[in-house]
């Protein structure tokens, strides 16, 4: 038990090392090259801004995270549903695919004014809509591929049992698609945060991260803006790690490869 805790924390060591090294390098370079603060503030200044605005920062981060999470949920569910339909009905897939791509190709920045017009820009729904659009596509593409990459032999076995599509879906396609799905969910988790923040840039509540970053950057409060970026990162990574943990749980049957490389 203790050994496994020890191993767990050892897993984090390299990341910690890199973090320390990166911050050190950043601080050093900024100081040595006299990089102006409006180009890149030094970590210590950012830290001070962070420390003195903590409660406000966390509140803004939480607000934005709620938007991101809502959008993530909506977008992923929509992506999965459509992927299922497309994977099942080839014809419908061919018909819907181009429009799904089209929806995705509409740049989020252009989407912001439209969602603002549709929903109230000041509540969370308009940002959720943007995050949802961003999450939808990776999930959709990956799940379609996952559902289709079942080994033909495994399908043959199911065919020999003469079971319905639904059962094949549940017993074979879903487990096969899970790793693909989670790859997409990882991507979507960070996209959701970006989507929410970009949305906030185009008009959002001042309780949100995006609006705060914009305000601070234009008022030359770069240290604070960076502190807000750091908060965005913290929420984003937390979200990502949660998805990764869910993945580990859902695909725990997978062999963890013993050897690697030559």
């Amino acid at each position: 038990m203790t050994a496994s805790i020890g191993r767990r924390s050892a897993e984090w060591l390299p990341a910690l090392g890199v973090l320390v090294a990166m911050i050190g390098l950043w601080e050093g370079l900024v100081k040595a090259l006299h990089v102006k603060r409006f180009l890149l503030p030094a970590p210590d200044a950012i830290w001070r801004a962070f420390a003195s605005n903590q409660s406000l920062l966390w509140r803004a981060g939480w607000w934005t995270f709620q938007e991101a999470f809502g959008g993530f949920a909506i977008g992923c569910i929509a992506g999965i549903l459509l992927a299922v339909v497309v994977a099942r009905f080839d014809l419908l897939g061919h018909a819907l695919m181009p429009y799904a791509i089209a929806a995705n190709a509409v740049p989020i920045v252009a989407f912001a004014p439209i969602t603002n017009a549709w929903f109230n820009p000041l509540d969370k729904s308009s940002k959720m809509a943007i995050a949802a659009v961003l999450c939808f596509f990776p999930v959709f593409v990956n799940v379609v591929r996952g559902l289709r990459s079942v080994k033909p032999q495994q399908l043959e076995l199911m065919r020999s049992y003469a079971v319905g599509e639904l059962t094949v879906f549940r017993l074979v396609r879903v487990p096969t698609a899970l790793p693909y799905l989670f790859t997409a969910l990882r991507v979507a988790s960070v996209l959701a945060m970006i989507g929410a923040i970009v949305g906030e840039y185009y008009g959002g509540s001042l309780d949100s991260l995006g609006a705060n970053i914009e305000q601070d950057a234009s008022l030359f409060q770069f240290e604070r803006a960076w502190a807000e970026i750091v908060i965005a990162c913290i929420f984003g990574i937390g979200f990502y790690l949660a998805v990764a943990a869910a993945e580990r749980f859902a695909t725990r049957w997978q062999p963890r490869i013993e050897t690697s490389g030559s």
Partner: protein
Amino acid sequence: AAPKAKQLDKVTLQLKWVTDTQFGGYYAAQQLGYFKKFGLDVTLRPGGPSITPEQVVASGQAQVGIDWLPSLLAARDTGTGLVNIAQMFSKSGMTELTWKSSGITSVAQMKNKKVGVWCCGNQYELYAALTKYGMDPTKNKGVTIVNQPFDMNLFLQHKVDAAAAMTYNELAQVMETKNPKTGKLYTLKDLNVFPMQNEGTGMLEDGLFTTQDWLNSHRDVAMRLVAASDWGWIYCRDHAVQCAQWVVKAGTALPAGHQVWEQNESNKLIWPNKLGIGVMDPKAFAFTAATSLKYHGIKHAATRKAYDAQIAKAALQYLKNHVKGIDVYGKHFKPIHVTLTAGGK
């Protein structure tokens, strides 16, 4: 005078926003060759929502920028050596709108209402006005401040009771929109307009600035730039329609009708100017600085080092010397009458 190409001084001018008649004077100066005549090779760099002109200028990407004075003060406040060299707009163009139907006929009546305003340094004029009537906008006491996006939908959909609008842009946008009930355009009859200038809380908006370092070594260039720009604005004062057309050509995808309105309204913010175009009014400066300080846009009181009035004054002199009979005061300025059409065409 024939331009002597190799002697032209290169200057990049960072605008605060996208190509627009809000910057008509500079486009006119470019179009008419005024910059060239004064020995300058000027590049106009459009801005946008994620561009902070102070940042661009401080980093040397552009030599001169245009921004509202409170933003410049905020940049200076954090130790960035920027300095205003000409205050083009001498009046505030900011207004707060309400619907006639709402019955809100004064700023005082905005008490306990939802009031929209833009962020990022643009809010102080309204804050000052609200404070005058006993509200505390920074703490949302007695009024609910709503962070307004850069289009007017919130207001049009009645999701806010009052909304910020620049006379030269958003106000027109509202009046270029059809009232879905009547199918006709909204007019001033549908609206109550509260200009911050009239509330006595107008702050100084568009002005030219540069870094102290660059100014020290390029005083003459800066002066000629201001002079040519002044000349452009003077031209636009008298030829609003022509200026609007140039701006349309310069790449705005927006309709010409709207641009004419905007040019005309911008002119109103400059003219008439008793001190002469571009010259900073110390009183207005003091008010702007004090208001910024009050609402925490800056932490330390701004000093008069924030602007260099000599440049603007020298520019006026230079202009008078080179252009016979030029009127830099616009005492008899008469705005033209612009009729807005659907979609601003």
